[in-house]
């Protein structure tokens, strides 16, 4: 594997096998073009067909990823080491594609109700998903940057998708400005790393750092590593690079928030783990402190700020910041311990299914022309929509980390990894902040079961449609299955971890 990466052949045409390895990304890319073309011909009343096409292409890409899971075996690289064809990227692809598919299912109804059902929506979702999948498989600094830009630019447009809504426009602008800022950090960091190691391929960088380990590490490399981390921290919305998150989540149309809150985080964490845990293990002692610090701050600020919110979307935004902190624990543990990466993967899957469920409830319960955003809009939901309320309660409990839900085992594995590697204080800190988080999750959960006061107007929840029912049933089932039949996903995450490229340091346990 290393030998393969070490000898870069000069100007050779990529083989068909390389092309085949990119099949999921290619399917989505083709579907993107198809959707843009279809949008030009379809009458505006038939826009839901676009959702069907998008769903089919996502399902096909999912199928291709599943095939890739079995085909990639112990993993190899494509395009001369620039792209990973391993189970790790297939695992992340699966999370991304399922999340996107669920978002596509709930979107038409919501967009129609908000009056913003434009055709390019689905194309942009697919483009963004493609970017995320590229990011998940990227083995080259340039490819990482390409992936991040592709996903971000699509999201900039999507967050401003409600063109008549000032808050949506503000969200898009804010996201664009801060996103551009983050890209700058990332690129600068990459430049420094390249300048010091002379490589853009992750495998080569890792080897160079291993060689440099014997002598002293150049401080410029460390600055580069930290700047790269900052770039990622923006994308996963970790404190102190989180300030855009609440405004953008609140301003963007809820279906877009559903999409970006989950998938961006999943993709950025996937790349973060590949770059830090597997490419930079030899400077681990240097970046571990920074990652731990950011994790600690995220858990603190995210949870404390969420306490005082009265907007559902903002609360879930701050909760997402806190969740990023918990996932960062899994990144901060010793790279030689596999449980850290497995924990991150499990947490991402659990977070995806739970958070999509929670946002889906807000999306499908939205009234005509307005978003269901304030806490008071949920009051009494359980009496009118008992199943939706029960599902929302389950998602909130999962976010709070109660067993037997997915969220519990996400936390369990990252805390376990921290305790195993002697980062017990980090785990304890996570525990203390988790206890705080219970307060705001349960407050919302309880609200749904309270009767509205006599004079209080009940929110006009929309009827639960078939598509909403499908998404809520799927996410509910997922939340419970990941919380009870843990071995299913654990084994998959373990297999994904064991073949993770670039394999520079030998991992154990």
């Amino acid at each position, binding site marked *: 594997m290393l030998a393969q990466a070490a000898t870069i052949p000069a100007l050779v045409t990529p083989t068909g096998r390389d092309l085949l390895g990119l099949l999921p990304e290619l399917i989505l890319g083709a579907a993107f073009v198809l959707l843009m073309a279809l949008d030009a011909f379809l009458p505006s009343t038939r826009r839901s067909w676009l959702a069907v096409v998008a769903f089919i292409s996502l399902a096909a890409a999912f199928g291709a990823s599943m095939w890739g899971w079995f085909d990639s075996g112990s993993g190899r690289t494509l395009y001369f080491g620039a792209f990973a064809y391993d189970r790790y990227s297939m695992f992340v692809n699966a999370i991304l594609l399922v999340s996107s598919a669920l978002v596509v299912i709930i979107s038409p109804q919501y967009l129609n109700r908000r009056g913003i059902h434009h055709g390019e929506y689905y194309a942009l979702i697919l483009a963004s998903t493609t970017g995320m999948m590229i990011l998940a498989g990227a083995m080259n600094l340039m490819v990482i940057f390409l992936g991040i830009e592709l996903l971000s630019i699509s999201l900039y447009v999507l967050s401003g998708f409600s063109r008549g809504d000032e808050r949506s426009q503000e969200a898009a602008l804010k996201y664009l400005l801060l996103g551009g800022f983050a890209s700058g950090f990332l690129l600068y960091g990459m430049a420094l790393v390249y300048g010091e190691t002379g490589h853009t391929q992750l495998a080569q960088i890792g080897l160079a750092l291993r060689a440099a380990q014997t002598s002293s590490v150049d401080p410029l490399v460390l600055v580069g590593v930290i700047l790269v981390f900052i770039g990622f921290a923006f994308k996963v919305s970790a404190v102190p690079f989180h300030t855009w998150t609440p405004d953008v989540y609140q301003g963007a149309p809820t279906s877009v928030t559903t999409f970006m809150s989950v998938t961006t985080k999943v993709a950025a964490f996937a790349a973060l783990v590949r770059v830090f845990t597997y490419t930079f293990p030899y400077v681990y002692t240097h970046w571990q402190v920074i990652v731990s610090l950011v994790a600690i701050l995220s858990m603190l600020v995210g949870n404390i700020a969420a306490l005082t919110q009265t907007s559902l979307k903002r609360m879930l935004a701050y909760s997402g910041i806190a969740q990023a902190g918990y996932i960062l624990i899994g990144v901060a543990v010793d790279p030689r311990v596999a449980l850290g990466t497995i924990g991150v993967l499990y947490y991402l899957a659990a977070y995806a299914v739970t958070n999509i469920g929670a946002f889906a409830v807000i999306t499908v319960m939205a009234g005509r022309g307005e978003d269901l955003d304030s806490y008071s809009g949920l009051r009494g939901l359980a009496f009118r929509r008992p199943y939706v309320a029960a599902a929302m*309660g389950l998602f909130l*409990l999962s976010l709070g980390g*109660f*067993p*037997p839900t997915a969220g*519990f085992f996400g936390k*369990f594995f990252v*805390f*376990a990894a921290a*305790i*195993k590697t002697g980062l*017990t204080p980090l*785990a*304890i800190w996570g*525990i*203390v902040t*988790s*206890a*705080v988080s*219970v*307060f705001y999750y*349960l*407050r919302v*959960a*309880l609200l749904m*079961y*309270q009767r509205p006061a006599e004079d209080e107007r009940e929110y006009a929840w929309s009827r639960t449609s078939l598509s909403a029912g499908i998404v809520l049933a799927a996410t509910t089932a997922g939340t419970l299955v990941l919380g009870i039949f*843990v*071995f299913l996903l*654990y*084994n998959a995450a*373990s297999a994904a971890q064991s073949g993770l490229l670039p394999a520079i340091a030998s991992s154990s346990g």
Partner: protein
Amino acid sequence: MNVPWLTLVIVIPVGMAILLQLVPRSQTALIKALMVGATATVAVIVFALLYNMAGSPAGGGPLSLHYQERHDWIPAIGASYHLGLDGLSGWLLALNAGVFLLGALAVSRRATDRLRFYATLLLLTEAATGGVLLSADLLLFYLFWEGMLIPLYFLLSNFGDENRGRNTLKFVIYTVAGSLLMLASIIWLYFNAHLGTGETSSFDLAFLINHPSASQAALVIPGVKISTFTPQQLVFIGFALAFAIKIPIVPFHTWLPGLYESSPPFVLVFFAGIVSKLGAYGFIRYGLTLFPQPIGYFKWVLAALAVLSIIYGALMALSERDIKRIVAYASISHLGFIALGIFSLTQNGVNGAIIQIINHGIIIAALFLIVGMIEARTGTRELHELSGLEKRMPWLYFLFLVATLAGLGMPGMNSFVGEFTIMLGAFQLNWIYAVLAGGGVILACWYMLRLHQGLMHDPIKPVLERVRDIRLGEALLLSPLVALMVFLGVYPRPVGDLANPSVAQYVSIATGANPNPSSSAPSAGTPQAPQ
């Protein structure tokens, strides 16, 4: 016999809870019948299991568990779905089945217009507490332990007076903080189990008892000594906090009085009846077996806190004017006795604790039901607004009298047996503890009689002249409890006989004595109750 009986104990309530969602909300009679039916079925199964336990084969290992069921759950990390029953968990499971049946019976269809919601949550709570008692795997145990909070949260925050929301949140955050620390401790135990060559670690309780972590020196983080405790002791503190909050032991009790005050009797019957006992159960099942050294080290402090709970609860019960709060503080005092018995780390003390866990479950359920009946009729809980009810409520007077006598530990009543045995254990620990706890018994006479006399004796207040006595249904609800108070007072052997061998095992592991129960002379530890 291949029927997975223990799984049924968990699955029947869950299955019925799901089934209830298909019943229209307005069919209250059917909902109640189904709820009672499910809890009664579980009770029948549990008592049949207990009856046949002595004759059933027991598993080997440090704990002799009966009716074991074991399946892989997360094989990669050595977590399994492992259930088992022994003398300790058996009796608690019986109490569990009893109080939930009582809770199902106690709710009248007029008491709430959300009967289906209540029934669902009651059944889910029963499944979770049953799971806590049955699991023999630490991760599974934790799953049920923490999962229990979910139905409880909705129960406590939806049924009760207007302060319930705040009180429930306090309880949940308290317990979540405690149990998450326990989770960290469980993970630590798992990773630090002293493994032989070729072994992989496991969350199985018996495995962790047999593979204790190698003793380590005081915790030192590069160069700085941050604690004089060893890691084992800190890990024990993680467990102890979770259990101490649940019991609760003073000073972790602050959630209790308010929450008991704001909850309705039909919730308190099982909330006070079993949930608080799970903390005591945890100390015996996990504290004694997994942490012989730390619990020996901390027993002086823990026993002192237990005595403090006894005295503090009693004094508060004496000073309160709200009858529900009096019972709540009396409960703290009684739970202090249970804790004292456990921390004496003697055969007598732990035996007494188990007997007292059962007794207290019965007494507290009866007292909360009685308080609820009085409040429902008079519309007040203020002691000074109530008096002379004996004339209007002769039947309640009689049943309440028995419960009062049981509550103050009168010889011949059930709690005398338990408290006496606990005192024997406390004396073996140190006579000071026994003397102070004895003071608690005297105070118990005072506050229980103050409560009883205040409510029942003296001339009746004019506003209370129209109060009616309890109905037949209510009398039938209380009678079995009252009968049990007397029965277990004169004939406590069934509890002791079944629990003794298990207690011997737990105590011998905790004190490092010969772990073979047959040689630890159970006759020496058997309480000779007055007959």
